[in-house]
């Protein structure tokens, strides 16, 4: 607490300034403000890099120091100043303050030099903020009949592997023994306590997330970045709930292929869009590799919505089949800079199914700021559905 700063004056003899740094206090406050500001722009900040499957659990965001703004004159093309030294009228030399090579001039920091901070955020923290801030519901996973086994800590024993030695517990034993008359206060083997592990069975909670991306010619680089950012935060949200989460990446144009994550966002195809091919591929993989009954299946589909008209019926059938098995199917329509209100072929497909009562939802994604609202929409949308099922 910084409350005591004002309550003492330097004349009353206390060396308060040795105990308390106002500069550090105000600096921490600045830091806090930067973090708040960064939080607001996180989807953008973490859009780059390979993040979805494993990898780094932190993101580093470079930020500029905040400026406390004041009225200032615009920077003039030329400035006048006074110098001192051996210089004659008409002398010319380079300006050390503004090297000629640096063409662009950024706002701020002109006279103090640019200082950049590199803030590191734990992704788990970010996800916690999000859930807290958006008040998103916790998912209620569907657990299958199969159970998985797990080692958990249970009790102590006098023998065990050295790595499981419980020092606190052992020390307590020593203290107890020391209390006895005539005891010698050194550790003996009698004192040592080791943690024991026991095998315990628990219901399997497993989730599979399918990311289906439309990579047809009409998807721009920015569209893909938007989709990636959305996919990333979706995985983080799901990971919060499921201990084991498997991700499958499928891209499609008129055909569909499975990719690794690294390749997934690099893929770009040409030609038209046939959504049913992608949906069928997903369903194929689901049945081949996973147990659709006991897994929590999620499908997120990103596309610009321009599905081939001839494919409408087939796509509807494929989606309806998938929606029956999945916990949730989400559709994001990425259209950088546009907001088309989901009035597209694919948009209508999802909308129709949604009115029929299937667990599907859709959302438009025109900008990085929309990522949060899309996530909020999906996680709240599927909650009531889960309540029935669970």
């Amino acid at each position, binding site marked *: 607490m910084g409350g005591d700063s004002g309550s003492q004056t330097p004349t009353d003899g206390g060396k308060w300034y040795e105990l308390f740094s106002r500069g550090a206090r105000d600096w921490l*406050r600045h830091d806090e403000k930067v973090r708040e500001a960064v939080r607001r722009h996180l989807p953008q900040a973490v859009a780059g890099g390979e993040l979805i499957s494993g990898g780094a659990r932190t993101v580093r965001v470079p930020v500029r120091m*905040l400026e406390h703004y004041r009225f200032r004159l615009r920077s003039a093309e*030329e400035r006048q*100043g006074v*110098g001192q*030294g051996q*210089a004659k009228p008409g002398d010319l030399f380079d300006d050390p303050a503004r090297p000629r090579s640096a063409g662009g001039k950024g*706002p701020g920091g002109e006279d103090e030099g640019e200082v950049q901070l590199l803030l590191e955020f734990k992704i788990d923290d970010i996800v916690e903020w999000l859930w807290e801030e958006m008040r998103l519901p916790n998912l209620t996973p569907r657990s299958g009949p199969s159970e998985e086994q797990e080692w958990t800590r249970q009790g102590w024993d006098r023998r065990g592997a050295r790595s499981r030695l419980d020092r606190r517990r052992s020390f307590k034993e020593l203290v107890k023994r020391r209390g006895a008359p005539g005891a010698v206060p050194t550790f003996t083997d009698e004192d040592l306590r080791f943690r024991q592990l026991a095998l315990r069975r628990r219901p399997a909670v497993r989730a599979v997330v399918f990311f289906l991306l439309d990579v047809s010619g009409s998807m721009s680089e920015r569209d893909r970045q938007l989709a990636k950012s959305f996919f990333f935060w979706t995985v983080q949200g799901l990971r919060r709930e499921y201990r084991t989460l498997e991700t499958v990446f499928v891209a499609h144009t008129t055909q569909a292929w499975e990719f690794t994550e690294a390749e997934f966002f690099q893929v770009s195809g040409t030609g038209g869009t046939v959504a049913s091919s992608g949906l069928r591929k997903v369903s194929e993989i689901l049945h081949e590799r996973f147990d659709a009954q006991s897994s929590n299946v999620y499908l997120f589909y990103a596309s610009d919505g321009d599905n081939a008209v001839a494919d409408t019926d087939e796509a509807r059938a494929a989606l309806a089949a998938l929606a029956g098995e999945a916990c949730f199917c989400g559709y994001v329509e990425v259209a950088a800079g546009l907001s088309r209100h989901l009035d597209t072929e694919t948009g209508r497909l999802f909308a129709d199914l949604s009115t029929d009562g299937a667990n599907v939802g859709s959302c438009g994604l025109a900008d990085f700021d929309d990522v949060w609202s899309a996530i909020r929409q999906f996680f709240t949308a599927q909650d009531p559905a889960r309540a029935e099922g669970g």
Partner: protein
Amino acid sequence: MSAMEWRDYTARIEQLARESGLRFHPVEFEAVPDSFMMELAVYGLPVRMPHWSFGVRYIYQLIQRHMGHSRLFEVVFPGNPGHAYLAAGNGLAENVLVTAHVLGHADFSRNNLLFQRCQGQVSERIVEHAAQHARQIQQAIDTHGLERVEAVLDAALALEQHIDIDQSVRRPRYPQYTEPPKTLADDAFRRRFAALEPASARAGTTDRRRAPVPPHPERDLLWFVAQYAPELESWERDIFLAVREESFYFYPVFATQIMNEGWASYWHARLLREADFIPQQAYLDAIKCHSDVVRPGAADQQVALGLNPYHLGFAIWERIVAAEGLEAAFAIRAEDDDFAFIRNHLTRELAAELGLFRYRARDGRIRVLEEDVNALREAILAPKYNFGAPAVLVEKVQVDGTLELSHDHAADGRGLDLERGRKVLEYLHRIWRRPVRLRTIDAEGRALEISAP
């Protein structure tokens, strides 16, 4: 222990200073750690209100110090008694020098008229007042929450320089009504005219007209917001007025920097020369330290693109004492500020001797301009006008409460930085709680209005 020695020297230096004609309030010296010296430089006062912007400056200071740029020997706060903080790391010789330097400052701040006037306004206990403000703001944070208090401080500190130094710290509000029109001469024509329509003639004399707010363009933005912001809460007003009072304290420090530092440097050099009680070694060390402090801008290199105010002020004072005598110097120290000091006493010969020159920087190239002592003086003084801030005035408050500001671009020579201007208007809008608009010009000189929201 050298602290004892130093105490002993301090008393003797003080006596020597008094004999030389300096008049100063007693000064309380305190040795403090380097970290606190840095905070003094950042906050400008020993205890001051919390705000994140000070944290930013603090970090810049830390970086500067790590790069070994600046080192602070002392910070003095005028008052009765004055407070002087010395860096605990100073050696004896440095402290002897610094003591003499501090006495020069103490004499200056006691006798300079600008200091006297501002101290008359904010009292000689600004250090205690500022501590009181800090406590009051901490209480506001406890009651109203950090966010709200910070919003007020964001706006108030952004307008820190926008005060009217010619007004009182406790400036009253504008008169509510305009002056009644002058009663007209009671002549035959008036009497006959009044007889035509008696009612209207009488009404003219009792008709009071509400004065417009502001009655004239107002440059004291902190005061205006504090007095006239719609729905300003009283604790918010107190914060604005606290910032304004501190600005009144900072103004003379700002407006006499060259004189004041020069004066203190002149006196530490002179007192050291005359202090025969100081051992030879300490004297030599102190003189070396002196030459570090008052070294010209271009000591290492051939050319520097800046001035050392210590050096410039020191050189001008030496010339004044040599040419006009000590009595004249005392009078100038009392009457001038930097504007008068530079214009009256920086002569062409001195400028040439010091190697001062004007330059123009454009596209990364610097061209040295022709000699012109008047232009040189103005170039030195240019950053000092209007507390170093653009001239922004309150023009009008609309019926719906919209605040209209204008930027006097003719006086400043060019328009405002629009991005920063908008941000300041955003700060202000949160406190004014009605739309805020500001007229300035763009890069091509066309009229332009920015606003928040």
